[in-house]
């Protein structure tokens, strides 16, 4: 099941009254939405408030979501509008130009899209990215290949099993072990007080 199908199923569950499914959607997208809002609002506490407002608005409007667009694209638009409205309400000028959700994921060069954060958070982000790269580079070949095919190429477990010529269960296990290795190194960084301003 692809990411979009997975989201659509969660949305349908929310629409039928399953609140747990909405929690799952929040947990799944909170960090990415946080990044989107961070491009408009620098203050970390403020961006949390806007993220909360974004998800509340999304929940209220979820019955109107028909799945014509990807859930994240829809959520992205709500986040951008909420952040802009917040800036207007605070008598601050929102950026005049806008970027599509897909482009925004990788757009880091322009000033407006640059995630202005506290130096501490910027440092932490760099440290996390460096750690992940280091761990992936240090992984055994079969683990590195499995996690790379999944995360960077976006292949399904079945496709990876065909590529690597191994059972799906083995793919699942390899991907997990790669993630576990990364997690072991990230845990001390992210459990620290540095991520809680």
């Amino acid at each position: 099941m692809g990411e979009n199908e997975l989201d659509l199923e969660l949305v349908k569950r929310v629409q039928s009254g399953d609140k747990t499914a909405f929690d799952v959607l929040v947990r799944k997208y909170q960090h990415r939405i946080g990044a989107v809002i961070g491009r408009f609002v620098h203050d970390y506490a403020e961006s949390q408030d806007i993220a909360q407002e974004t998800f509340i608005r999304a929940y209220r409007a979820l019955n109107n979501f028909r799945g014509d667009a990807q859930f994240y694209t829809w959520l992205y638009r709500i986040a951008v509008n909420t952040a802009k409205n917040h800036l207007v309400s605070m008598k601050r000028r929102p950026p005049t130009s806008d970027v599509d959700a897909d482009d925004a994921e990788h757009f880091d060069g322009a000033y407006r899209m640059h995630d202005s954060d506290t130096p501490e958070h910027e440092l932490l982000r760099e440290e996390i990215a460096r750690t992940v790269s280091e761990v992936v580079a240090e992984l055994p070949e079969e683990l590195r290949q499995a996690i790379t095919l999944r995360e960077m190429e976006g292949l399904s477990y079945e496709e990876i099993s065909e590529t690597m010529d191994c059972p799906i269960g083995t793919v699942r296990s390899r991907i997990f072990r790669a993630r576990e290795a990364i997690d072991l190194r990230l845990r001390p960084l992210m459990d620290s007080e540095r991520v809680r301003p």
Partner: protein
Amino acid sequence: MSMKSMNALDDKICEQLSAWMDGELSREEAMFLERRLQHDEALQAMYSRMQIASSCMKGQSTRFMPNTLCNNIRLALEEEASPKKSRRPLFAWAAAASLAFAAVVFIPGIMQSTTKQDINLANNREAISTPASSATFASADLIANTPDAVSTSLVASTSTSPVQPTPKVNPSSAETVAGVMSPEDFPLNVSSEKKAWPRSPVNANSDPALEAYLVRHNQMMAQDGMGGFVPYVDVVAQDGGQPDKTIDAKTSENAGDTK
């Protein structure tokens, strides 16, 4: 978060979490994991870290949001939903009680006032529409009983005039008014009764019975506070076939008095 709770996560759950992130978990397993994810803080933290790592590998930008965000959203949504459920009936009952109270307190007064007004208006109409063959209002007797009284015409006096002094209703007379439905039954004011009616005869041919009726009608309306005639003005009637020159003369004379 303690290391103890971290270690409590077994490999099976962690592997399920990894597969669930990729959408590779069966429906039953996914439901089980999602329920656990709601309450297991260690699992939530691990999920966050795995998401950050995944975003880093994909080149996506992320901003770490605290795990409390999800709980805050859930609480906000629950708070938003609960007042509607719990307070709506309360508001409905409060509104209904207020309306009932208002109805009990105000409606009888309004009804009474409206009824009196209707009676007076009906009497007014009845009096005004009396056939000319029997009697017509040619004019009001504009002899003022009080020094500050002003001259006015009958037509003007049928509507509430700004210069008209507010009639004072004494409780006893108000009760009488409330109980009387027709000027014929209305007891004539004693002080007025002592005077000869009309106090300023203008026409010898006027109908005393009709005049008495009109005087009662006038007093009744005056006591009701909804009077059509100026309360201190005598009302006279005359045969419609005989225009009364005396009235015009009297009016002019009174007008001169007030100057």
